[in-house]
């Protein structure tokens, strides 16, 4: 049912992703205004977007003996991998590339963020920045393994790694209904990859903004945009994986896709604001002792169902 669209989708997909990110940032700013008791107006929502021209015009900061090549590479990797991950996410019945291994592609793009963030921390030759990069890598496995099991669970239920097949397999019942643990684990994993809110440890205040600390100008813009792009991409991928893709009554498929994506995104933005920053050792222990066993048991459920089909 899901099929690859023409070359124009290569332009539309990143544009949609960017629009989603702008909406998420605006929503986050509105929530911040509400929490601070400021008026919730259009100005408040657009305020973080004023950062864009300011950062573009900002003077670059020079560090003694930076590794410029790796620094740039790391900074660019974060948003670029987010954009590349969208290639396999269907929007309604259309997708940019209907890869036979779409789920693995998405996962591979996610781990590029790992490398990118470590490089962004390493590049400036500054202590706190490097500490931030190491924090993300140290937690990487704790973030990534439960997420991988969640992806495997959806793929097992559909007996395919093709995202289109996973959507088709949810005709009767959404995967979120009978794989709730995988759904929650997936959402936690993708928000952790955005290092936002409770997962903001690598850019924590205690290490002077960590990875973001030494970046200025366009570099800072790319890194900060990258985390929101990843949040939108993660929310968009949750729809075909667990929420039946573009399926729904009355409205066309693309409308359902965007509605569901925006809903997941809104929930993520709200939850990320509600939670305090999680200390790394606490989350790592929770991930290894609780999340991974739960995710494995959850993966067993569709495996047994598929075997008995």
């Amino acid at each position, binding site marked *: 049912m899901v099929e690859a669209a023409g070359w124009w989708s290569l332009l539309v997909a990143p544009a949609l992703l960017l629009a989603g990110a702008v909406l998420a940032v605006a929503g986050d700013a509105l929530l911040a205004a509400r929490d601070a008791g400021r008026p919730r107006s259009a100005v408040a929502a657009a305020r973080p977007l004023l950062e864009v021209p300011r950062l573009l015009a900002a003077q670059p900061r020079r560090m003694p003996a930076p590794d410029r090549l790796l620094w740039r590479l790391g900074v660019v990797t974060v948003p670029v991998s987010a954009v590349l991950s969208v290639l396999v996410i269907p929007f309604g019945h259309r997708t940019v590339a209907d890869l036979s*291994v779409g789920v693995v592609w998405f996962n*591979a793009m996610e781990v590029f963020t790992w490398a990118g963030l470590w490089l962004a921390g390493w590049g400036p030759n500054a202590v706190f920045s490097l500490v931030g990069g190491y924090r993300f890598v140290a937690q990487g496995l704790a973030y990534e393994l439960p997420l991988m099991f969640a992806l495997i669970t959806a793929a097992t239920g559909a007996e395919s790694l093709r995202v289109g097949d996973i959507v088709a397999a949810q005709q009767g019942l959404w995967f979120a209904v009978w794989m709730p643990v995988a759904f929650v684990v997936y959402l936690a994993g993708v928000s952790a990859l955005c290092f936002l809110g409770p997962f903001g440890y690598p850019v924590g205040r205690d290490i002077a903004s960590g990875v973001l600390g030494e970046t200025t100008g366009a570099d800072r813009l790319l890194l900060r945009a990258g985390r929101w792009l990843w949040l939108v991409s993660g929310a968009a991928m949750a729809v075909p994986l667990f929420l039946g893709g573009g399926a729904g009554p009355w409205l066309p498929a693309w409308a359902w896709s965007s509605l569901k994506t925006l809903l997941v995104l809104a929930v993520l933005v709200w939850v990320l604001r509600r939670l305090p920053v999680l200390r790394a050792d606490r989350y790592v222990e929770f991930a290894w002792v*609780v999340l991974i066993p739960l995710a494995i048991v959850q993966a067993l459920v569709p495996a047994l169902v598929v075997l008995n089909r």
Partner: protein
Amino acid sequence: MDTLESALLAALGVVALVTAVLVFTCDSMARVTFALLASLCCVGGVVAVLGLPYLGVVTVLMMVMEMVVMAVFMIAYMMNPAGLMPMSMLHNKRGSLAVSGAVFATLVAAVFLTPWPAQVGEPPPDTTFQVGKALMGEQMLTMVVLGFVLLATMVGATVLATRRGRYDRFGDDLDLRPARDPVRGGVGR
């Protein structure tokens, strides 16, 4: 295989070789690691272009994770201060040149001297399924044994590497509750 695929294959091969050379010419541990990562990503691309998309993408995925973890350890264990200083990847230059030259010559000779079998029938439409069947069908026992060996190695290495054992946590008679941990709190405490 059409012209585009051949060109892509050649380009990936050249980039893989160039970045592999960079692994030995760069003087920073971080650059060396990521040059190796670039090389291995190209290898993953080669595998994907050759018609094994699953193995190709999984190679890229695993190599990124591995190289990031390796960067951390290589920088930590370099003999000069924490791998932060300029360094050289070349040791025992003459000996290693002889060994690597001989291995390279042997492999190239093997490529041209091996009587490669001719293709029989059509390649299957979904190679991922074939890979899965090969690994989880006839080779199931091998995979299960390998899985346990890997798990045992990981658990063993972790146990050997941790300074504190259960007697440190629960006392000499293992009856100390809650456990004596350097960091308070956590799951079940």
